[in-house]
Every structure is written in structure tokens, then in C-alpha cells.
């Protein structure tokens, strides 16, 4: 049995104006230490999948098992970097990270918890801005705080929901490189949600394409045969890169029966 197993997960939202069938039987398996990406069109149900794995939503059918334990509610062992960051605006950068550090290390002396927080803030290069509040930060800086907070949960599995999609291309590239470096140091198990095919190939070991909704499912996983540590430069010219990209784009294109509401920026 894999480290994380998502089996036949279905989810529909029932609203007064009707039922939206979002996920129609999602299967996904992940080994410990793996970096997996899920790529799909906007509105296909990626955030819904993240919320289900996080335990913030309950599935209508199917089950999610992490490290032998069935997911039945939220918990810090499934850390999450929210799509909309969800930083607490009344707390500084340091306090936002410390909230998570304190929550998962209740037994530790405050001096040690403080040191861990300092290290995390430093890891995402925010030490100079540690005492600023979120509204005083740029989008990229906010994103870094969210990543630091996610890592602060010391999760068995880190869920990252389109962490960079709200950023401009230059900042995005910088943060992708930073994430590569951080992941190289920490080797956390990661599920990265993205609508950017190139981002997925750069970062992930394996990529699941998601069919556009309603009743979205995941296509067969595409292995990224690129060696690590990876460098952005020249990578897109390698045959392994081209192969993964082609397979991914082909699947995503063929899965579209009707035109989707909005295309992700670099899909197709």
C-alpha cells in the first residue's frame, strides 16, 4: 500500500440552485518523499481535491489513506499552502509562521520554537521582512510566508494549491527555483497543484493530468525522467522534458470535449 492512497473519491456540491458534480472517482497514489503534480484546467476541481485530502471537506464516496491512517478531518500532518494564501492579516510574517510552529511543537521550550520559526523565515528569505504584516508584502513575499507556514507544520504530506499562479512570470520562476532548493534540502512529500505544464515538469517526479469537470478524474500518471538536482537552464531542450510535455499536453487536449471556461496560461 502506497504512502498516500486516494481511491475512488467522489465529491458533489449541493446548492439550492442545483448539484455540481465536481470529482467523479479520483484515484491517486504517492510514495513517501515523492513530489507529485496535478495539472488541470481552471475550475476542474483541483482545490476540491486538495480540501478533501486536507480533511477540510468530506468525500461523498471513496477513501483517502495517509500512512495507513484514514483521513477523517484536518490536521497539521497534512500541511497546506492555500491557493489564496490565507495569511492572518493581524499577524506579522514571524507570527504567522510561529502560529504553526507552536501548534505542532507544544512540548518544546519557547526558545527552541522561536529558533525553528527564525530558521523557516530565513529559509524563504524573509528575515528582513519578518516583522511586517501581510498587507505590507508583495504577492511573492506573501507566497513565501505561506510556504514557510506549510513547512512549519512538519507535514508528512505538503499540499500546495497553485502556489505561484497569482504571480508574474519572473517572480514565479524565482520562487520555483527556491522551491526546488527547499525541496532538495527537506525532501518533504509534496502534492503540487498547478495549471502550468512547465512548472509541473520542472518540479515534479510524476504528474497527474486532471480532466476538466464536471465529474473530473485523474488521467494516467506521467513520469518525468529528469535527473535531480534540476536546473531550469537548457532543461526544456532535453528529450525527457519534451516527452513529458507532449504526453501531458496531448492528454489535456484530448480530454476536452467542450471548450473549458478558461485555459490555464501555458496549457496547450
Amino acid at each position, binding site marked *: 500500500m502506497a504512502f498516500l492512497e486516494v481511491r475512488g473519491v467522489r465529491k458533489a456540491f449541493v446548492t439550492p440552485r442545483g448539484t455540481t458534480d465536481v470529482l467523479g472517482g479520483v484515484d491517486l497514489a504517492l510514495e513517501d518523499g515523492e513530489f507529485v503534480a496535478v495539472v488541470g484546467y481552471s475550475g476542474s476541481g483541483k482545490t476540491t481535491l486538495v480540501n478533501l485530502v*486536507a480533511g477540510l471537506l468530506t468525500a461523498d464516496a471513496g477513501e483517502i489513506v495517509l500512512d495507513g491512517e484514514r483521513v477523517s478531518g*484536518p490536521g497539521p500532518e497534512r500541511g497546506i499552502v492555500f491557493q489564496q494564501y490565507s495569511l492572518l492579516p493581524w499577524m506579522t510574517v514571524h507570527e504567522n509562521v510561529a502560529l504553526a510552529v507552536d501548534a505542532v511543537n507544544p512540548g518544546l521550550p519557547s526558545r527552541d520554537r522561536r529558533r525553528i520559526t527564525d530558521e523557516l523565515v530565513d529559509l524563504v528569505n524573509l528575515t528582513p521582512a519578518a516583522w511586517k504584516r501581510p498587507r505590507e508584502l508583495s504577492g511573492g513575499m506573501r507566497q513565501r510566508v505561506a510556504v514557510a507556514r506549510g513547512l512549519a507544520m512538519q507535514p508528512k504530506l505538503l499540499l500546495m494549491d497553485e502556489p505561484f499562479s497569482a504571480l508574474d512570470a519572473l517572480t514565479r520562476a524565482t520562487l520555483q527555483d527556491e522551491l526546488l532548493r527547499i525541496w532538495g534540502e527537506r525532501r518533504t512529500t509534496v502534492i503540487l497543484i498547478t495549471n502550468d505544464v512547465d512548472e509541473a515538469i520542472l518540479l515534479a517526479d510524476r504528474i497527474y493530468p486532471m480532466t476538466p469537470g464536471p465529474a473530473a478524474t485523474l488521467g494516467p500518471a506521467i513520469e518525468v525522467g529528469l535527473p535531480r538536482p534540476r536546473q531550469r537552464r537548457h532543461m526544456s531542450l532535453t528529450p525527457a522534458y519534451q516527452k513529458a510535455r507532449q504526453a501531458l499536453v496531448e492528454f489535456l487536449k484530448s480530454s476536452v470535449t467542450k471548450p473549458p471556461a478558461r485555459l490555464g496560461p501555458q496549457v496547450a
Partner: protein
Amino acid sequence: MSRTTARSVLLPVLGVVGVLVIWTVISETVTKELPSPLKTWQESRRYVLEPFFKDGEMNQGIGRLAFYSLVRVGKGFLLALAIGTPLGFLLGLSRSFHQSFDPIVQFLRPISPLAWLPLGLVIFQKSEPAAIFTIALCAMWPTVINTAVGVRSISQDYLNVGRVLKLSRFKMLTKIIIPASLPYVFTGYRLSLGLAWLVIVASEMLTGTPGVGGFLWQEYNSLVYSHILLSVITIGAIGFTLDRVMGFVEARVRAV
């Protein structure tokens, strides 16, 4: 001084002058009983220029009278916050508490201070606690309702952060729920203070306690009409100042 600041000073001054002119005209023509602005000033100058003199229990400078009223309002207001804030949080947090007590809140809210005051006198047998009881009971509703609305409108995103971190109930309250609802709570406080100040006049009139409202009623009974106007202007000026001060505090809370 730039054009716009000149305008923002000049136009309000013009407005005040306009009101004084209308007041003078009315006092000269329609109601001869109404003292003109000039007469009001002449008969009130001692109260204003020596605001803290005290000739007797009911003949004191306007500053002293205002101070009595402010202390009374302060006590009533603090009592209103002390009761209203936790009540608001409970209404916002607990569905069953809301279902049990919201109808009662809605029922009590529109009751006038004039109705509460006699009840306060019956309960406390003394005018001072009865006045404070009335102020608190009338002034607390905006705090209760705004706090409850503030708690219920906390973004699910913030609550999800707390859920993922498995925060204890206490930490959830202190780290997320209270800071997130604070801007609403302070709007409630500002409205409550305004109401407390509205109620003070009525409660002082009915209990005859020394203060601006008590003074107003006494001067009406002794036919010194200019002092009614002095009291009215004082009440307005203090109410305006209180609102500005609370507005400033509220803005500071929102800025966080």
C-alpha cells in the same frame, strides 16, 4: 493654505453662521420665548468661561456638569461592553445559544430608556445605579449585534488555518476569532457610546441627578430658557467629540 483646505474650513463656518442667523430670525419673529444666540451667550457666559465653579448642587459650571455626565456615561458604557461583548461572542459562536437568545435580544433592543428607568429605580431604589443600569441596558445592543455579526462573518479561510493546525478552542478564540472580528466589535463600541450619550439626558432628567441633562430639566422648570440651549449645545459638542474619538480608535483597529 491650499484651495481645498480653505474650502473645508470656510464652508463649515458659513454653515454655522447660517444657522445662527436663522436662529436669530426665529427668536425675533415666530417664538419670542426662544432666547436669541446673543442672549444665550450673555446669560451663559459664566458657565462657559468658569466651567468648574460650584455655587450649589444644581448651579455649577458647564464643565463640571459635563464631567458628572461623562463619568456616568463612562460607567454605563463600560457595563454595556462588559455584558455586550461576551454576549455577542456567544451569539456569534454558538448556534443553539443564538437560537435561544436572539429572539430575546430582538425583543429587548427597541425598548426605550424611558421604560427601563422606572424599573431600574424599583430594582436599585437609588437614582445613580438606576441611571447607569438604564444606560448600559440601552447602549449594549449595537455591541451585542455587531460582535455577533463580526464573529459570523469571519472568513472560512482563516478558520481553515486554525482547523488544519488543530488549534485548541482557547487558541482559536484568541489567535483567530477575536482578532478577526475586532473591527466589527469596535464599530459596535462606537455605536454603543453614541447611544449611551443619547440615553444620559433622559436618565438624568427623570432621576434629577446633577449633570448636563439634569441641569437642562431644572433650568426648564425655572424658566431659564437660555440654559436649555446651553445644555443642548454642550450635549451636541460632547457627543460629536466622543464619536470622533471612537472613530479614531476604530480606524486604528481596522488598520491592523
